[in-house]
C-alpha cells in the first residue's frame, strides 16, 4: 500500500500488512527529521502525482527484487525534529531481496516523487534543495 498522509506513521501496522508465510525477511526503513539547527519541517506533496509515482516505484521494486510485499507511507504537514517523515517496509523470501528492494524504493522516491521539505527555525524558513 502507498499512503501520503498527515497522520502519524504506524510501523507496526505496516509490518502487519507486509507479513506473509512465504516471507523469510522483512526490512524496514524510517526517514526522520534531523536537527540541522531547526525546529521542524513542513512537508508538501503534489499528492496525486506523488501517489502515482510511488505506485510505479513500488511495482518496479516488487518485480525487480521479487518482493512479497512493499508498503510506503510518506507524511505531509508539520513535523518536529525526531519524527518520522517516511516509512518503508519490504518483505521477501530472503534478506538480500528485502534489503535491495527497500533501498531501491527510498532512492527512487528521493529522485522521482514530487515532495518538498521546508526547514522551519527561529532564524526563518528555507526550502530544502533550493539554491
Amino acid at each position, binding site marked *: 500500500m502507498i499512503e501520503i498522509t498527515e497522520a502519524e506513521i504506524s510501523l507496526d501496522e505496516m509490518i502487519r500488512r507486509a507479513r506473509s508465510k512465504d516471507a523469510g525477511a522483512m526490512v524496514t526503513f524510517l526517514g526522520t527529521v534531523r536537527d540541522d539547527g531547526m525546529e521542524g519541517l513542513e512537508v508538501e506533496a503534489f499528492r496525486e502525482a*506523488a501517489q502515482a509515482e510511488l505506485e510505479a516505484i513500488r511495482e518496479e521494486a516488487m518485480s525487480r527484487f521479487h518482493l512479497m510485499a512493499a508498503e510506503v507511507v510518506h507524511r505531509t504537514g508539520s513535523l518536529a525534529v525526531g519524527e518520522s517523515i517516511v516509512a518503508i517496509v519490504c518483505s521477501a523470501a530472503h534478506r538480500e531481496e528485502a534489503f535491495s528492494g527497500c533501498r531501491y524504493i527510498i532512492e527512487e522516491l528521493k529522485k522521482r516523487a514530487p515532495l518538498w521539505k521546508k526547514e522551519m527555525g527561529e532564524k526563518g524558513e528555507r526550502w530544502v534543495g533550493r539554491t
Partner: protein
Amino acid sequence: MVLAFAGFREILGKERELRLLEGATVKELLEELALANPRFKEAAFDESGELRDYVLLMVNRKRIDPLQDLSRTLQEGDELAIFPPLAGG
C-alpha cells in the same frame, strides 16, 4: 489549470485557471505568469530571460524537459505544474 508547489506555490498560489489563446505554448504561459507577477519572474527566469534550471515542470502529471518542451502547445483542460527540485524522504 496551473498548479504550483513549494516556493512557487508561495509566490503564485496553489492553483489558478488561465485562459490561453489558441496555440499558446508552455513558454508563453510561463511568460504571461512572469508578466503578471514580478516575484515569479525573478524566481523562474534569469537576467537573459531563460528559465532557471531549478524550475521543474509537469504537463498532465508527466515531467517535461524545459530544454526541449517549452514550445509544446497547450490544449484546453491541460494541467501545468511548476515546482522546484524534489526533496522528499
